[in-house]
């Protein structure tokens, strides 16, 4: 058995060197001796200077690994190869053959190797599994689930459609459910509006509330935006147990309930009959009602109270300012009332009207109180209201945070002095002068009242100028642009004539002063006794003489000359009151039909008689000069006769006017036969009845 094994054993043993094999053959054939050369350091490299670099001996672990590589694990039966393995394992490596006798017990070795083998096997399995998983995950060869489940299906559009439909259906069901839920919750909140807590939450959106102990209190005041009324404006909210419709009761401290308004009266001390028209009242009411959107009784109550507080504040500011106003305005303060004497001699009364709630029902019928005045209010009242809001807003903005809260929502933001003075490190003196006198509230208010008064007066004055043969078309732009600036443009038109005389005149009202502007000049208007806008008469004279020229041209007159005298020089010398009545702005048109006759038509305008027409005629001197031939001849000192245009009351003003002028011309002493004939024709034309074909019977 041993001999049989000689050949195969030689190969593993003799791998090391042929010399070992030789020595083995020299001994007896039965005993195998394995000789290994003593462990020599292996030389890995020899450098050029002859130094040898040794490879370090392999460690035990490495050796074990090398030997384990040679084990065939699949071969369970190791009895035959046991010895060889032992040899190769190197348990007795490096020993002479004699030491073979003391080799360890083979069973023990097998046992130790077994554990190693088991471990290696499990490790191998793990590695194999790992590589498999890696391969799977990397190449995805065998782990494709969808392909494994079924074969690729060919596309079925109907089927897909059905699936999508189903999915959409399920989603729609979800949405419908959610919508239903939302609806239900919305309905719940609406139902809960009458609940105390819900009402409180709604109230807190718009008003500033805080909890003090068991009570809920709030503040309406403008303390933090520089209000002088420090204590006012506190209110308390109580639960209303009795009435389910009105869960809240608002109790406002102080006398703030009811309606409140600021009334501005403009009155003349020396009331004269034509100026009664200007006495008017401007009233404001409920400044902030548009800010609050919610409409519940307590909101209304709070808004009214805040309005009241605001107007009180306004009156306080006005009376405080009255001290520093110039003495020409002579401000007088009576409690809630401030009087000013304005420059034009009228008194402006700013008055706080407050009707407590208890009195409101009693005095409903009287028109003295603001709450009944709202419907029939003057249109300017609304302007005043808006302007006062604007003034107050700008004032508050000056005094408080730049991003001002909605006034109705009460006090928020930094205190004004902290914001302005500390971070900016302003000077002590800046602090002391919060309001510059130019922009004081009362001056702005007075300016506003002046503007309104002037505007009204100018419109009335223009109204007086309008007659049956003059229409003044007014373009008032003030409502579109601003309350501070009002521009009234004028155009003239005479009925029956084709042209529309767009004048260059305009009235401008700005910062309490009125001016009359034309293209070339600006005249300051003194609105004392009379409107002195002489330039307007000039424009009117121009217009009327144009009308007259049209008229005469249509009667085949020839316009020779047009002279206009606007009477500026006379006006300057005369005193104002006389000048308007006697202002002789006139234009003379010289017309001729033949070379030796001249007719003069003079148009005069003034406030007393809107306009008048005079006629005169003169014949040329008996021996015609060059001037006559060249039509430059102007008659000296004509005697004018007035054409009584006042007798024109209605009807066709154009025809009547022309006939009157022509007949007046014809009645002049030095008339030609032609003219008299024409005048007679004109009269017969007027008397002629309407032609028969205009009657309805003939048409039908």
């Amino acid at each position, binding site marked *: 058995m041993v001999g049989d094994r000689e050949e195969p054993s030689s190969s593993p043993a003799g791998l090391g060197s042929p010399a070992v094999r030789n020595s083995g053959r020299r001994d007896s054939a039965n005993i195998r001796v394995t000789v290994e050369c003593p462990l020599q350091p292996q030389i890995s490299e020899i450098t050029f200077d002859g130094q040898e670099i040794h490879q370090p001996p392999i460690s035990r672990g490495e050796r074990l690994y090398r030997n384990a590589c040679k084990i065939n694990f699949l071969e369970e039966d190791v009895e035959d190869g046991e010895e060889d393995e032992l040899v190769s394992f190197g348990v007795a490596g490096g020993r002479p053959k004699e030491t073979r006798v003391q080799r360890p017990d083979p069973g023990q070795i097998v046992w130790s190797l077994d554990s190693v083998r088991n471990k290696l096997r499990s490790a191998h399995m793990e590695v194999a599994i790992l590589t498999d998983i890696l391969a799977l995950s990397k190449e995805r060869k065998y782990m494709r689930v969808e392909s494994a489940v079924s074969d690729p299906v060919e596309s079925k559009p109907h089927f897909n459609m059905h699936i999508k439909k189903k999915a959409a259906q399920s989603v729609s069901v979800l949405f419908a459910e959610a919508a239903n839920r939302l609806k239900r919750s919305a309905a719940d909140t609406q139902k809960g509006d009458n609940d105390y807590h819900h009402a409180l939450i709604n109230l807190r959106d718009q008003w500033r509330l805080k909890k003090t102990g068991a009570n809920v209190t709030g503040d309406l005041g403008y303390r933090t935006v520089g209000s002088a009324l420090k204590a006012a404006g506190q209110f308390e909210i109580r639960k209303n147990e009795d009435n389910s419709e009105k869960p809240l009761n608002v109790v406002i401290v102080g006398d703030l309930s009811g309606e409140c308004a600021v009334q501005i009266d403009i009155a003349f001390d020396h009331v004269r009959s034509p100026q009664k028209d200007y006495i008017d009242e401007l009233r404001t009411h409920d400044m902030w009602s548009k800010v609050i959107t919610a409409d519940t009784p307590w909101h209304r109550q709070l808004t009214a109270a805040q309005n009241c507080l605001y107007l009180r504040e306004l009156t306080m500011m006005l009376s405080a300012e009255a001290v520093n106003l110039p003495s020409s305005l002579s401000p007088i303060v009576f409690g809630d009332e401030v009087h000013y004497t304005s420059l034009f001699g009228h008194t402006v009364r700013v008055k706080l009207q407050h009707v407590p709630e208890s009195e409101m029902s009693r005095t409903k019928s009287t028109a003295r109180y603001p709450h009944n005045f709202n419907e029939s209010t003057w249109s300017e009242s609304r302007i005043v209201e808006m302007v006062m809001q604007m003034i107050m807003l700008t004032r508050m903005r000056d005094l408080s945070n730049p991003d001002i809260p909605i006034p109705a929502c009460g006090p928020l933001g930094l205190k004004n002095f902290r914001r302005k003075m*500390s971070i*900016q*490190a*302003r*000077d002590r003196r800046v*602090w002391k002068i919060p309001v510059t006198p130019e922009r004081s509230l009362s001056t702005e208010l007075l300016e506003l009242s002046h503007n309104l008064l002037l505007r009204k007066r100018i419109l009335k004055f223009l109204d007086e100028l309008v007659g049956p043969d003059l229409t003044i078309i007014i373009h008032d732009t003030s409502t579109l642009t601003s309350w501070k600036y009002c521009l009234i443009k004028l155009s003239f038109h005479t009925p029956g004539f084709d042209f529309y005389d767009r004048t260059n005149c305009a009235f401008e009202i700005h910062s309490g002063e009125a001016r009359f502007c034309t293209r070339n000049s600006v005249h300051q208007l003194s609105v004392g006794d009379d409107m002195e806008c002489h330039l307007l008469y000039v424009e009117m004279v121009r217009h009327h003489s144009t009308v007259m020229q049209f008229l005469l041209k249509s009667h085949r007159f020839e316009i020779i000359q047009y002279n206009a005298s606007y009477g500026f020089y006379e006006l300057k010398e005369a005193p104002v009151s006389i000048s308007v009545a006697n202002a002789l702005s006139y234009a003379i048109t010289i017309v001729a039909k033949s070379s030796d006759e001249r007719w003069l038509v003079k148009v005069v305008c003034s406030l007393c008689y809107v306009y008048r027409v005079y006629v005169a005629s003169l014949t040329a001197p008996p021996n015609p000069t060059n001037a006559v031939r060249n039509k430059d001849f102007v008659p000296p000192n004509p005697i004018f006769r007035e054409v009584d245009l006042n007798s024109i009351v209605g009807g066709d003003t154009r025809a009547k006017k022309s006939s009157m002028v022509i007949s007046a011309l014809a009645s002049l002493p030095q008339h030609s036969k032609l003219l008299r004939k024409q005048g007679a024709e004109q009269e017969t034309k007027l008397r002629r009845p309407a032609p028969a074909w205009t009657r309805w019977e003939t048409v039908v």
Partner: protein
Amino acid sequence: MISWVVPYPTPEGKTHNQALDDLSKLLLAQGYEKDVPYCVECEMYVSLPEMMPVQKVFHVILDSDRPASCFLIPDKDQSISITAEKSMMGFLSKLSKIFKTSPGKTGNLEVRGQTFLYRDFCVRAGILSYGGVIKGVIVEAELRSCSILITAVELMKEFMSTFMPTPMDTVPSYISSKPNILGAMYSPLETIHQYYDIFASVRAGRSLVSR
């Protein structure tokens, strides 16, 4: 408004109080109106070593003409100076465990004096004292109608020459050391910095008037 703060040289043989009296007489003779007294105070805050390993020092300056504000200037990096509300003082007193007013240094630095008005100009003349010891006279000249420094440098020089004993031919050292503030809007903090420069030199023991 722009301000220049300069030390007023006391003439030889006169006390500082006498110099200030002479100056106010001169100003009144020139047509100035006397206004309220003013006071600029400087307090030093030092961090306690057990709270902060690296000691930090800053100065709080109060100006009676800016009654709602206080100014904080750190010792080292003066670019992070702060203009704050007066309530900052209350906040600092809450921080008394970390910062403490310097106790060892003898008292506060302060300038007390009188304000004189002349149209757009305002002159503040006061005595600078350090812990009760008078150190010199400080003059602050203010032009109220201008906010850009560079446009008014010559005007300020000319104006200050009207009451200073020697013609003013240089700008204050703080302004000359910061050329970038010349074209910018002048803020009150620059005035406070000018005061602080003078205070710092007094603390360091340097003489006020270099000339």
